[in-house]
Structure formats: C-alpha cells, structure tokens
C-alpha cells in the first residue's frame, strides 16, 4: 500500500499506510455528510476537485506524525519541464481576460496552465525529493486510483478549530524587489479584491461579521515571495455545509466568483481536476484544508506541474508569463 501524507500542525506531517479510500464523482456535499456520519472521530485526509464534481477521502486506521526531514530525499532527480502552453497563446489569453474585465464582466480571473515532463522513478521518491526543494506549509502526497498527487502548497484555504474559522489568501508575487511588491497598486488591488470576496464567503457561514485579522503580510518561500491576508470568523456549521457555500477558494477562481468560474471553463481547455481544489485533514469538527497549488500529478512516467496567475486589468502578458515561470520554483524549465 502506498503511503498517504498530509500536513498537520507545527510543520509536522501525517503519515499513514493503513487506510480506507472512498471516492465520489457526483454529489460531493452528500458524500462528505455520509463520511462525517460514519467516521466522525477518525482522522481523515480529504481531497476535492476544483470543479467540485469529484472527491476522495482517506480514512486512516492508524497514522503517525513525522517531520518533513524524516522523509526528505536528496536523490538526484532533475527532469526538464516544458510549458504546456506557448508564450504567444498565454499572452492571447491574458489579453482576452483584460477585455472581459474592461467590459465589466469580472474584476479578476485566475488563469492556470501546466509544465510537462517524464520521470521513471517511483512517485513517492519524487515527492520526497521535491519536499526539500519547495518550502511549503501545506504539503501532501496522495495515491489516487490512477495517478499520484504531489502537493507543495503554501496557501491555507480554511482552518477550523472549535468555532473559529480562518482563511489566508495569497495574492501578489515578487517581480523585481520586495519594495516594488509592497508598493505596487496592481498587487495591492489583486489581494484586496480577494479579501473582500473571502469576507463575503465567510460572512455567508458566520452569524457575526467576520474580521480581516492580517492584510498584506509577506510570505517568503525562498524561490519567491508573496503577500497574503487573513480573515477570521465564528461558525457552528460543519465541513460539508461550509464547503458547499465557500468552495472553490476565491484566490484561485476570481471575482465575482460565479462569473469567473464560467470564464475559466471558457478560457482553460481542460478541467483542473485536483489542481486548485483542496487537500487537508478532517477530524471531529476540526479541519485544515489547503488550496491545492504548486502541485504535480504523476501518472506512470508522465508528470505535470501546474501554475497560475491572477489576472487583473493592470496585468501585462510579459510579467504574467514571468510569474507563471516563477511559480515553477526551482524546477528546470525549458521554454521558447
């Protein structure tokens, strides 16, 4: 049995090779309600696709907490990745989004694509290797039925402890200097509109008004730096109902969300699947879920790495292309 690994608390990882797997390809909310009823007290690893049509839950019979350093590997695996989209087509898509924005259709859309390569090595070995490359608070390795997910997300979607629920959206990426990132009106607006969107999503599940507890703080990942904010509130709802209202996350869809989701289905050629969905743990009424970004999908020897950019009216295709490449971290990329 391949192990399942997921971030927990205080930089520790949940590790298990003794679990049950349940999946659905239709009503995710109903599926999660059934899982909650049957396995309420069990530690569970949850994965939900961006389109909210598919979900998988690993119900752990036993597990242990480990440090990333316990499994990190220095194995020399260094495949060359190639963008799945040409710079020309990427630029055309950015310009199309800007036209939609100018016409008042939406304020921001998150546009994503991928990088492709081949790796013969075992997927868990590849996970161990990249664990030391990406600095990530929300890593996970999930053996799915037909492929494996290797996730190195730096972004929290939702964390619930008792009644307290928080989200920490990331928007804004280093281009030239930290001062430029902090002073940029474009990067400021990009995060601010997502903060208003996530206030909205949390306000829909919290009785009392939610609060912005952090705004535009710096997250240093080594391979780049970002700005992020934090919004918190109090709720008595459970995970299935919370996700039914708040999923998918605002930072990887756009604003207003429903129109952005429609635009993404028009602009991107393929469903995103697990990418930009969520992965995390769930036990009793507490949970911690990431936004599944900075992630690989490995299917036999084929491996894809996914990345995206928030596009606003002030976005320039050239800079967004650079941001797309930046988000590939320390991967070796060959592009035209």
């Amino acid at each position, binding site marked *: 049995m391949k192990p399942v690994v997921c971030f927990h608390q205080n930089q520790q990882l949940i590790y298990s090779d003794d679990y049950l797997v349940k999946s659905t390809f239709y009503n995710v909310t109903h599926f999660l309600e059934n899982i909650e009823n049957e396995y309420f007290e069990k530690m569970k690893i949850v994965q939900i696709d961006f389109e909210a049509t598919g979900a998988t839950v690993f119900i752990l019979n036993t597990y242990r907490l480990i440090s990333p350093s316990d499994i990190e590997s220095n194995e020399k695996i260094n495949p060359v990745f190639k963008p799945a989209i040409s710079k020309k087509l990427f630029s055309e898509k950015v310009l199309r989004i800007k036209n939609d*924005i*100018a*016409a*008042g*259709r*939406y*304020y*921001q859309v998150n546009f994503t694509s991928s990088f492709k390569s081949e790796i013969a090595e075992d997927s868990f070995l590849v996970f161990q290797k990249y664990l030391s490359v990406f600095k990530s608070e929300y890593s996970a390795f999930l053996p799915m039925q037909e492929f494996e997910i290797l996730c190195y997300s730096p972004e929290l979607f939702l964390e619930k402890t008792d009644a307290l629920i928080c989200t920490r959206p990331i928007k804004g990426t280093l281009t030239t200097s930290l001062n430029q990132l902090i002073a940029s*009106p474009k990067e*400021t*607006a*990009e995060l*601010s*509109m997502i*903060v*208003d*969107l996530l*206030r*909205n*999503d949390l*306000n*829909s599940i919290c009785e009392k*008004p*939610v609060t*912005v507890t952090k705004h535009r703080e710096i997250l240093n990942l080594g391979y780049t730096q970002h700005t992020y904010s934090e919004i918190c509130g109090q709720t008595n709802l459970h995970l299935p109902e919370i996700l039914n209202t708040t999923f998918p996350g*605002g930072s990887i869809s756009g*604003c*207003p*969300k*429903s*129109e952005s989701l429609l635009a993404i289905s028009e602009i991107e050629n393929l469903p995103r699947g697990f990418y930009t969905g969520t992965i995390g743990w769930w036990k009793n009424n507490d949970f911690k879920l990431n936004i599944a970004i900075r992630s690989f999908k490995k299917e036999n020897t084929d491996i894809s790495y996914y990345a995206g950019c928030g596009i*606003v*009216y*002030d976005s320039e295709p050239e800079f967004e292309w650079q941001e797309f490449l930046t988000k590939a971290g320390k991967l070796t990329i060959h592009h035209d």
Partner: protein
Amino acid sequence: MKLTALLIDHDDSFTQNIRSWLSKKLNVTIINHTEISEFKKISEFDLIVMSPGPRSPQDYPHSLKFLSELNHSQYVLGICLGMQMMTVACGGTVQTYTPPYHGKTSTLESADQKINGQTVARYHSIICQLPENQFELIATSDQLPMWILHTEKNWMGMQFHPESFLTVSPEIYLNAVLQWISK
C-alpha cells in the same frame, strides 16, 4: 423593532458583505434577481437594495423592469451595478470607463463636511451618465458621480462599495441610509 431590507442579489460575490454591513441596523432578506417577479411582499420592506454584480444593467432586464414599475414612494438603495440600473431606468446611460477601478480606493468630494475627504472602495469599469435634472449629487470622485439621490423618487445610489473592508468608515453610509428612510 428593526427596520427591514430586501437585498436583491445580481450573482455577486459581495452580497454577504452587504448583508453583514446592513444587519447592524436592519433585518435583511436576500433573494436572487431571477426571483423578483415571483416575490410578492416587496412593499412590506422598508428598503430595497439592488446589489452590485458582473456585467451591465442591460444584462438584467428583470431588474430594470422591476425598477421602472416600482411605486415611487418605495425606498431603494442601488450599489454599483444597482446605481447603474437606476440611471438606465431613469433614461440615463452607462459607458465603459478606462482604466477600470477594481479593488482600489479613492476620496469622496462633497459639500457635506462629514463626507468630504472620506476614503471609499471602488469596483467598476462602467460609469453613469446621469439623465438631466433627476438626481442630486451627494458626492463625486474624479468628477464622476459616486453618491446620488433622486429628486422625486425615494432612490439613492452609491457607485462606491460601502461594505468593502477598504472603505474606511462604513457606518457613515449606513447611518445616512437609516436617516433617509426614517424621514
């Protein structure tokens, strides 16, 4: 007893923030814009709020029809797209505004010293061309109408977003709405 508001949502992502902003002083009911024609209890509400939303007023024929058929004594607050709908329903027009103002703040200019200089959030790429002699300007920004009041109907429009966390004193606008509907 708390006053009541009916918030008509245009598939927006800030509707729950508007509910949260209003709910400090009003009991809020939310319906989607597609449900307006079947909703029978409109006149029972102290205030109707037309929400912001994507696209243009012309993309919401039900909401425009609703506004044009509404009793003039009914209090209506239009926010962003809602104010643009009011403009169109009164014979004005909207036009695109470049570059768009999305998730950014600006300063209100007003003869009212409590309002002048206040920082508010803006989310729009469309701007109102108001019909002549129908609206009073409460505040502007960059010479654009930001806060308007109809001279005959009980209609108020805000182009800015009072509910945004970027708006520095959201209570100013909520208190102004309450004073207006309590007259």
